């Protein structure tokens, strides 16, 4: 029997998230919504902060808990930090919610974060599945969390149905692997894959099916169809959270799985199908984004491309490569959070912030905000001096090291096409607003203003606080983007010796 107290340090961050979620729900019961509203957010944020505090001391060494079921090595812990940062940022962006159901929303968000953390630190197949289900179930509901919004319901239903099928694939794959290996621990699988001369067909089939399940969570083509709808339908902070968090957690788990399950001598053969999917993702994501008129959908397709870029970290399954993937995700967190924070901010000041057309002339109305958003878009396109460049640079290095020329070719094409996509938004911002359009925007603002005012009277937080929080997320994200872009030395040095 594992000693609970021994395992507590590793478990503490997860518990902090779970308890934070329960705390919000209890508060909702104890205090009337009108008085407790601000406290819900405070408790949720405290839960995330506490989890981060518990994570930091773990960074010193590589620990495992529950007989290897949870692996708190540096790889997993860095992912925890990325996930927690994403959760914290999206909580701050969620301050703009003014419905009474916010307590459930916050609790689900924390549980989703917990699921992601479990997934990123999973040491065996069962824990992978457990983490995946915790995060998925929470997200299915969160996507639908826009009262009266049919698009959100539809998106959630699509996400759920496809997600359930993918979970089936994953579970079936795991079962087959178990059948071949006789165990579910990653170390057992690794021993088996390296020690067996001729791997049986059910093992290979199992690995293939499992990869399909992971590909779904990463939104790799052709398992990507849910992403644009879910991104568009979900509340903006949720979109922000799932775009980074899900990707990070799924990538971490998949990387661990591959490191264990792929026999070194047959690496090329095992990774080739994944490479094809990744190349397709880059191209499809870039091409499909061209015609989109909604920034959230553009970011969804860009997320599909970026999932493809991430796979460039895998060829060779080296530590440097995985480090590059991790670094890229940290950068991706900054870029995406900056953009979503901008969206929330714009919504708060009465602008649309979703359709590309509504960005027309933003550079003239709000130069600082437009500048920050443009920088984030350039970062997504991979330009220095932002982390978008540094990250892609590392990924390209990993891919060349693994001789994944297919991925590199796709990277070159996709970079060009997606740069066009991002530039469309930037160009809209820089376009001189026409007189007519300005008045139309003013009308929208005027129409939105009373609605926002009403909400604030009933429930919700002070306007200044919400804007301040969104602004803070934006500033932090931009700072992170530049810092990781210009001075990545320290972080990269910390990324060596990842897998304990």
């Amino acid at each position, binding site marked *: 029997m594992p000693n609970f107290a021994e395992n507590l340090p590793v478990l503490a961050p997860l518990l902090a998230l779970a308890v934070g979620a329960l705390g919000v729900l209890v508060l909702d019961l104890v205090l009337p919504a009108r008085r407790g509203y601000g406290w819900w957010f405070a408790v949720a944020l405290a839960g995330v902060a506490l989890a981060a505090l518990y994570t930091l001391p773990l960074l010193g060494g590589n620990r495992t808990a529950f007989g290897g079921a949870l692996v708190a090595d540096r790889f997993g812990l860095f992912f925890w930090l990325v996930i927690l940062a994403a959760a914290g940022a999206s909580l701050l962006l969620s301050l703009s919610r003014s419905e009474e159901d916010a307590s459930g929303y916050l609790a689900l968000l924390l549980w989703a974060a917990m699921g992601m953390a479990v997934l990123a630190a999973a040491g065996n197949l069962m824990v992978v599945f457990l983490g995946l289900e915790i995060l998925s179930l929470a997200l299915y509901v969160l996507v639908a969390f826009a009262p009266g919004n049919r698009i959100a319901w539809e998106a959630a239903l699509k996400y759920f149905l496809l997600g359930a099928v993918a979970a089936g694939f994953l579970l079936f794959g795991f079962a087959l692997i178990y059948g071949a290996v006789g165990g579910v621990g990653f170390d057992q699988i690794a021993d088996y894959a390296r020690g067996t001369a001729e791997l049986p067909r059910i093992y290979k089939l199992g690995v293939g099916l499992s990869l399909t399940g992971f590909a779904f969570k990463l939104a790799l083509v052709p398992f990507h169809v849910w992403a644009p709808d879910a991104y568009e339908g979900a509340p903006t902070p949720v979109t922000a959270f799932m775009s980074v968090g899900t990707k990070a957690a799924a990538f971490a788990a998949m990387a661990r799985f591959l490191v264990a399950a792929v026999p070194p001598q047959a690496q090329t053969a095992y990774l080739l199908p994944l490479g094809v999917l990744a190349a397709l993702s880059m191209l499809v994501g870039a091409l499909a984004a061209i015609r989109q008129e909604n920034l959230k959908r553009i970011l969804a397709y860009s997320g599909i491309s970026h999932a493809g870029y991430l796979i460039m970290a895998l060829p060779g399954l080296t530590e440097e490569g995985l480090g590059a993937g991790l670094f890229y995700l940290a950068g991706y967190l900054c870029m995406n959070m900056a953009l979503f924070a901008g969206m929330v901010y714009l919504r708060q000041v009465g602008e649309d912030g979703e359709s590309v057309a509504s960005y027309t002339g933003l550079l003239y109305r709000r130069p600082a905000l437009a500048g920050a958003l443009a920088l984030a878009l350039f970062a997504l396109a*991979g330009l220095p001096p932002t982390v978008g460049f540094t990250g892609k640079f590392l990924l*390209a290095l990993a891919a060349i090291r693994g001789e994944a020329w297919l991925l590199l070719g796709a990277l070159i094409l996709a970079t060009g096409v997606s740069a*066009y996509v991002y530039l469309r938004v930037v*160009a809209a911002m820089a376009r001189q607003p026409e007189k007519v359009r300005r008045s139309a925007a003013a009308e929208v603002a005027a129409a939105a203003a009373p609605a926002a005012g009403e909400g604030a009277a009933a429930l919700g937080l002070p306007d200044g606080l919400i804007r301040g929080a969104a602004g803070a997320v934006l500033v932090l994200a931009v700072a992170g983007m530049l810092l990781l872009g210009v001075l*990545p*030395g320290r972080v990269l040095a910390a990324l*060596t010796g990842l897998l304990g």
Partner: protein
Amino acid sequence: MLSLIVFFPLAVAVAMLLVPRTQEKLIKGLALVGTLVPLALTLVLLSRFEVGSGAIQFQEKFVWIPSLGIQYHMGVDGWGITMLALSTLLFPLAVLASFGYIEHRVKDYFVLLLILETGTNGVFTALDFVLFYVFWEIVLLPMYFLIGIWGGPRREYAAIKFFLYTLIGSVIMLVGALALYLQFPAGQRTFDLIELAKLTQGLPVNALTTFAFFALLLGFAVKVPAFPFHTWLPDAHVEAPTPISMLLAGILLKMGTYAMVRISHPMLPQVARQWAWLIAVVGIIGIVYAAFAAMAQKDFKKVVAYSSVAHMGFFLLGLAAGTPEALAGGYFETIAHGLISPLFFFVVGMYYERTHTRELEKLGGMFLTVPAVSFVMAFTAFANLGLPGLAGFIAEFFTLVGSYQTWGLWILGAGLGMVIIAAFHLILMRQVLMGEKKYESLPDITPKEITIFAPLAALIVLFGVYPAPVFKVLDPGIKVLSALLLGG
């Protein structure tokens, strides 16, 4: 010192952000300071530059990303300092040309212009590939906005085209460089251009080195621009405001040519030798094709833009030939073109501000209307077509003499191009200067315009009559590169 030259404009740009939008006088003053100080510093460096030494001078080296062998390494030799001088000279002139020409969003404009200078100066001084690449890409951002916001009617199209061409080229170049970097065992890996070149020169000619060479070359060729990657240039020039055209032609194109003599050719001379014929063919086609294309244009600015493509063809021809004379001539072409073509674009701008048209049909009889401006135009056109006594002639003469040693009579193709170049310049002058007066009275040249014309014209004449100082500065670098390209 070099870092100061590179980052001073950026610092001024940041300071400028704090100045209120309405203080236009202060902003313009800051812009002048931000570009004049680097020029002054560069002149100081030039005076301290040790001519005749092939070594890298004024080096600055700091650790940047140690785990990947990336350094902050700055330094210049003959190749670099000439381009740095050109860049720091043209920026104040462009700022001056913007006064009175750029009227809206003055602050944003100058902030971007200053960031642009940091990018270009950085490209010419960086000696680490990653640092070089960062500067190379930083140039894109301000340029995109400068064309896209202050440009002509089709500015967005032109800006995006410029951006995408260069970006795709650069990504390919990056992959090529990374592939070279990974050729060596972990301990030796470096992105230092000088160190890396020493290593890569020993690699065999195989599929990988050939790929890397062409990947690098492609990235640079887009910027030069070499035929057939030149199509973004006429669009960008036509839409860009005059000062930006001056910088685009004067400096941005030179990033590509500089990068070839700094990176692709010194790193893989063994591959360059094998494919020299291809580069020569591209160069000659560029000269002839662009010359014909220029002749067919109806827009004044497009004529000048295509003439740029033609002149860059001479550089490629010289580079492909690889003899010291050809290399000297080719590189001198980039310097001469860096002085002449900004002036030419400025001339177009002078006419445009007076007549509000660039269509050649609507211009005419300008000698009678604005004699002084037209004198400038005639001077520039003659310089551009390579009249002896002016800088362009020296460049083309040396290129052809040097190329003959390698390519023999094939250079007649380039000679044919020179004839067409001369022809379209004469046609251009006939259309613009001669004929009946189409405008009754237009203001003639202003003191501001003379201030821009005078230094460029003086240098064009000086280098046309006495090019020796430039050649002396370039000589050590040329000898080394030529030995690499011819030897073996």
